[in-house]
Each structure stands twice: as structure tokens, then as C-alpha cells.
């Protein structure tokens, strides 16, 4: 009976320890991703060279960006727009951020209350966005970033 109890205890421990380690790891990854998103948000508000530096650091050349008008925007187009001053965010507030971690990948969703100019076109509204990150050389890289206007949401 004692032997059975010992085996059961060992099995529970063997299962519980990796699960707890994984939860800790995911919690660390989530903190890193939330910090990255906040760094991105601040760079978007600052604009210009700060935003370009952020894009260079966090976005691979083959990233997929679908803006709130449903247009595919390459990294080069966005950087050129920033250099030309055609890109400016007056307001960029995030809420309802949810992070799902899958090892070296993560899917994040949130809401943006935004106002500004995107590649020369003014925008204002509330958007649901998703960001997909892939960890490369210790950095969470943004491989996909898409916005969808929230129908019926109160605009600024």
C-alpha cells in the first residue's frame, strides 16, 4: 500500500513539476511580449526615427501587415512613409490585450483606440488587432500585424 502511494506521489510530482515550469516560462514570455508591445506603442506615438528603429529591431523584412483599410503594407513601404513624414499617430491606446504562448510563437490580440495618419491617409477609430510573434535570437519578432475596425464602436 505504501509503495503504491509512493508511486502515485512520484507520478503526480513528475507531471506537476514540468507543468509548473511551463506555466512560469509562459508567464515570463508573456511579460516580455507585453513589454515589447508597450515599447512599440511608445515608438508609434513618438514616430519618425524612433518608429523606424523599432520596426528595424522587431519586424522581419517579410512581415505581413494588413492595415485597418485592408491593405497589405510591406516593411519598406512603411519605413519610406515614416521617412517622408506621411505616418503619424496622435492617439494609440490599447486595451483588452490577450496573449497566447506556443513555445517560440505567440498570438496576441487587443483593441486600439487610435487617431493619426497612416501612409498619408487620416484615420480615427476603434480597431481589433492581432499580432503574431516569433522568437528569434532572443527577440520576439513581429511576423504578422492586422487591424480590423470594430463595427459600431464609439469613435473619438
Amino acid at each position, binding site marked *: 500500500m505504501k509503495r503504491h502511494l509512493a508511486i502515485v506521489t512520484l507520478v503526480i510530482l513528475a507531471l506537476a513539476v514540468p507543468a509548473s515550469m511551463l506555466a512560469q516560462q509562459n508567464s515570463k514570455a508573456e511579460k516580455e511580449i507585453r513589454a515589447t508591445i508597450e515599447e512599440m506603442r511608445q515608438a508609434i506615438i513618438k514616430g519618425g526615427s524612433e518608429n523606424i528603429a523599432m520596426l528595424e529591431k522587431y519586424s522581419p523584412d517579410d512581415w505581413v501587415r494588413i492595415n485597418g483599410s485592408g491593405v497589405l503594407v510591406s516593411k519598406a513601404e512603411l519605413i519610406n512613409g515614416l521617412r517622408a513624414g506621411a505616418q503619424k499617430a496622435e492617439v494609440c491606446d490599447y486595451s483588452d490585450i490577450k496573449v497566447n504562448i506556443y513555445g517560440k*510563437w505567440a*498570438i496576441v490580440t487587443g483593441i486600439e483606440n487610435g487617431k493619426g495618419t497612416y501612409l498619408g491617409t487620416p484615420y480615427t477609430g476603434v480597431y481589433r488587432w*492581432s499580432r*503574431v510573434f516569433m522568437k528569434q535570437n532572443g527577440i520576439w519578432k513581429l511576423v*504578422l500585424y492586422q487591424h480590423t*475596425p470594430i463595427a459600431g464602436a464609439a469613435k473619438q
Partner: protein
Amino acid sequence: MKPRFVIAVLLVFALAVPVSMLAQQNSKEEKEIRAVMEEMRQSVIKGNPEYAATLEKYCTEDMVRIPGYGRLIAGTDYLAAAKKGTTTVESLEYSDLKVQVYGKWAIATGIETGKGVQVGVPWTGTYRFSRVFVKRDGIWKTVLYQDTPIAQ
């Protein structure tokens, strides 16, 4: 001179063969993903029971769905709506499909034009979509699927 030439040729081969193998592999994965998307497209038009069965097969339980009106729908709710019949599609066409493969992950983008009801909300129009896939147990499963209306 000759040994240097031989070494250079060997180096080129050593680099070229893995790149070529990776390209072939990605091409195979891309075909698989395009086939999954076509199977899903056909099943959504057919409706239940094919549609619900396809969703169960090709979507993860924690899938995130953001339709063109910007609501966040959990995978379980999306599947429940499909089973209940509150998601139906009259027409659905894809164009401009692009697939990027990153090992066991992939991102597909494209344009969809169609008409239907998504979790009780009618929709019609043209949307740019992205779909993120992860390969689990040999099956490409959707973990994220988002639509954005294309501004006219």
C-alpha cells in the same frame, strides 16, 4: 589551385543542397496548406455536417477568430455557432493567396469575396484575410483567422 577549386565547389554544393531541400519542403507545405484552405472553403459552402466536421479537424480549440466586424470569437464559440447553424455561407471565393512557411508554422493571406452569416451577423463584401496555421499531429490547424474589410 585545383584543391581550392574543389573546396569552393563542395562549399557551394553544401550550401545549395539544404537551401534547395528547404525550398522543396516549403513548397510541399504550401501545397498542403492551400489544399486545407480549399477543403475548408468548400465545406463552409456545403454547410453542416461537413462544415462543423472540417472546423473540428482543422482548427485548434484555442483558435482566435476576428471576423470583418472586429469581434473576438473564441474557437469553441465559433465551432458551437457552426454546429447550431448560426454561421452559414452562400458564396465564398479566394484570390491573391500567399503562403509563408516557417517550419511547423505558416501564415497565409488573401482576399475573400462572399456573402453569409457569421455567428448570427450577416456579412457581404470583400475582405483581406490572414490565417495562421500550426502543424499538429501532421495536420495544419488554424490558430488565428482575421478579416479586414477592404475600403472602397
